[in-house]
């Protein structure tokens, strides 16, 4: 009964979304306030309907109702409750439903917070949201219905893929989708502005918090996914330049560019056309990502439950929305008026540079990701484009960008003084050079590139601190005054500094682990020792263990440094009972910012095959992204960006723009 109710709610949601797609647009053309006011009501209604459908599916997972095909395929009565719930989106149908739920959630937020938006903009933006909602609801209802019944109902389910039975699944997809789908708001506002033919700083002030929110969620989501793959796959890698990873990384890169260009538009009314284009590109890349991940057209190490036939439907959605938006852009972009002027050396100029490098980098990732598809279609040869390609193209593009980051926030709007900024960055440059020398000195035989890479990380960190120091009046005021001024700084200043600081931390982690990690594969018998980095690991042998829905062989290692044992690592080979599927559970020991990572292999006559990595500073990679996300949240809390109060902040933002 509940299941049918959920299915029915989904159909109702489609009906409401279709109404919401058409009526508000007619209303905005006829200046009919009544029809336009229908949009927010419809948005909230379809949110509750989709929520109902999602709740119904969750309920059938919680109660292990195996008469529902989707539950039978992906659940098991013995599965722990958290995985029963997260299993709702651990499959194609459920994950698309989550996608739609988040989409209508964002529409409802616009409806709720959009009280002081221009009526036509709000109506049109919500209508565009409804177009996307309708398309994906149709997709789910026609090709991927999660409410399909099975008769007779099986007694036991087939269980969820064991690799997905992890807290990672509870957190990673919702965060990732919050990011992906959050960019739909930027897209809808861009298209609405094009329909309207009008765009101004108020538009950017509206779009920026959404971009920021989506970007924050996507940053956290990608980082979470990376750490999950790192500990779950047992391969010791944290990023594989795999198509599925690239699919989430491209919207992130474009979204980062959008975040910065919207800033220029908000403060200076410049870069209007570019910002609108970037908003369209960012969400198009999100759609492309959804298509790549869900269709499985590209071979990926992260491929779960993909279905090529259903991919065609998403491809259709992709073509219609991207093609339509770009056509509209081509027709209407000229009608958008140009905004403020600025000199090449200025805050705006720096942000343009940021956009230039980020979009070019996005393009190289796009080429690397899609090239195998294109080549196979044209010549039939099958190729794979792996990490070497991306390291060679993406890497060099990032270096100048990272070097330029500390300059940006220190430059004045309109016309900046590069020499003065250089003088302010002397200290940061000096510290970074010292760091580079220290790396060369302390690590014997460190590659020069590694020293330079870590110096770039230090440069970013020092640069972000320099920015805060000068905003507080370093060099002109005493410490107590600086402290007072620091407390009075807008939160967005801290957000910027935190995000750039985090970027530096991540860069250090990435460079360190790339240059200094060691890996060894060996066979060990109980009592034998392996040496990894400064540590010795003594293998204590294997012993069996039983979990709720799996059995495992645990291998224990006593870890010692200079002969003194201080920890043990437990790694395991698991077999999940329902699917008879083996998985590797890596044993990870965090020592300061570094990690020892142990994975077990097969049994051989010479002992157990063991793979041991020493990964110095590896956790910096994810700590950096935590700083970035926190920076995003802090910026989001800034009064100027508070979603409900764009009107009140208008005057302040204008004066602030002139003052800085």
């Amino acid at each position: 009964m509940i299941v049918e109710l959920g299915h029915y709610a989904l159909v109702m949601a489609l009906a409401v979304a279709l109404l919401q797609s058409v009526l508000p647009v007619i209303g905005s053309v006829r200046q009919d306030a009544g029809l336009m006011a229908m949009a927010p009501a419809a948005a909230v209604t379809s949110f509750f309907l989709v929520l109902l459908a999602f709740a119904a599916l969750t309920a059938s997972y919680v109660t292990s109702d195996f008469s529902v095909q989707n539950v039978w395929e992906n659940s098991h009565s013995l599965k722990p409750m958290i995985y029963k719930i997260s299993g709702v989106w651990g499959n194609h149908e459920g994950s698309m439903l989550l996608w739609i739920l988040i989409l209508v959630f964002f529409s409802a937020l616009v409806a709720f917070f959009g009280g002081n938006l221009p009526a036509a903009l709000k109506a049109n933006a919500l209508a565009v949201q409804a177009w996307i909602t309708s398309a994906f609801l149709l997709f789910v209802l026609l090709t991927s219905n999660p409410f399909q019944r099975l008769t007779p109902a099986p007694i036991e389910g087939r269980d969820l893929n064991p690799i997905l039975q992890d807290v990672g699944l509870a957190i990673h997809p919702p965060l990732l989708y919050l990011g992906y789908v959050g960019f739909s708001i930027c897209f809808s506002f861009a298209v609405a502005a094009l329909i309207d033919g009008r765009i101004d700083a108020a538009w950017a002030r509206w779009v920026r918090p959404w971009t920021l929110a989506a970007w924050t969620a996507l940053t956290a989501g990608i980082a979470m996914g990376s750490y999950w793959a790192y500990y779950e796959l047992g391969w010791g890698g944290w990023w594989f330049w795999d198509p599925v990873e690239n699919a989430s990384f491209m919207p992130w890169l474009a979204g980062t560019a959008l975040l910065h260009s919207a800033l220029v538009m908000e403060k200076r009314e410049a870069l209007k056309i570019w910002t609108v284009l970037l908003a369209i590109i960012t969400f198009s890349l999100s759609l492309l990502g959804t298509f790549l991940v869900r269709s499985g057209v590209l071979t990926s190490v992260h491929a779960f439950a993909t279905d090529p036939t259903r991919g065609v439907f998403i491809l259709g959605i992709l073509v219609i929305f991207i093609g339509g938006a770009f056509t509209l852009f081509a027709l209407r972009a000229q009608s958008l008026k140009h905004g403020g002027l600025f000199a090449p050396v200025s805050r705006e100029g720096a942000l343009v540079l940021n956009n230039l490098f980020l979009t070019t980098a996005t393009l190289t990732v796009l080429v690397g990701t899609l090239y195998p598809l294109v080549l196979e279609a044209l010549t039939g040869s099958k190729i794979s484009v792996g990490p070497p390609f991306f390291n060679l193209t993406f890497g060099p593009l990032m270096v100048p960008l990272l070097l330029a980051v500390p300059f940006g926030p220190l430059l004045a709007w309109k016309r900046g003084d590069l020499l003065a900024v250089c003088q302010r960055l002397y200290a940061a440059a000096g510290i970074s050079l010292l760091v580079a020398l220290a790396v060369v000195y302390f690590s014997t035989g460190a590659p020069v590139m590694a020293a330079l890479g870590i110096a770039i990380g230090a440069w970013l960190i020092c640069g972000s601190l320099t920015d805060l120091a000068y905003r507080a009046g370093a060099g002109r005021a005493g410490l107590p005054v600086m402290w007072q001024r620091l407390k009075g700084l807008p939160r967005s200043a801290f957000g910027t500094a935190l995000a750039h600081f985090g970027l530096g931390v991540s860069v250090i982690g990435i460079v360190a682990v790339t240059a200094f990690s060691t890996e060894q594969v060996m066979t060990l018998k109980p009592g034998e020792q392996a040496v990894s980095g400064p540590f010795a690991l003594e293998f204590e042998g294997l012993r069996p263990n039983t979990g709720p829905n799996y059995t495992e062989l645990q291998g224990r290692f006593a870890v010692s440094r200079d002969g003194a044992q201080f920890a043990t690592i437990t790694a395991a080979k698991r077999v999940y009972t329902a699917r008879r599927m083996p998985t590797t559970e890596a044993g990870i020991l965090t020592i300061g910012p570094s990690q020892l990572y142990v994975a077990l292999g097969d049994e051989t006559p010479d002992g157990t095959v063991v793979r041991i990595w020493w990964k110095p500073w590896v956790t910096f990679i994810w700590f950096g992204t935590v700083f970035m996300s926190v920076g995003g949240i802090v910026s989001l809390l800034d009064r100027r960006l508070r979603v409900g109060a764009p009107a009140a902040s208008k005057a302040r933002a204008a004066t602030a723009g002139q003052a800085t």
Partner: protein
Amino acid sequence: MTRKQKRLAVIAGGVGVIGVAVLLVLFALQEQIVYFHSPTDIAEKQVSPGTRIRLGGLVAENSVTRGQGTEVAFAVTDTANTVNITYNGILPDLFREGQGVVVEGAFQPGNTRFVADTVLAKHDETYMPKEVADSLKEQGVWQGDGE
């Protein structure tokens, strides 16, 4: 600077960066991509030793033998032809005889033995790497469920 000059400066900068990126991409696409071959492709056209390739097919039945320590030898087949592989390391969890697999590596000079440094099997039991599925279909031995 006039508006026109500024715009020119921006465009010149943009073209410069994109030009560099295009050069990098073209260079990398020539040097860094890895072609996928089936055992039959290898029998038909010689792949020169040392060239990195990906090789996909099924792990041949009764072909997996353990060597010294972490060394493993097995054969990859598309039923028409077979290539012998050696690999030093931990095999993926779902590596089994009769399962689809993709290995990456190169032929040793003056030797028909393929030395793999990466072995990929999938997370999902029912999943077959797309390239392997395609090449099995070409050989007419595909036993998957339709499509």
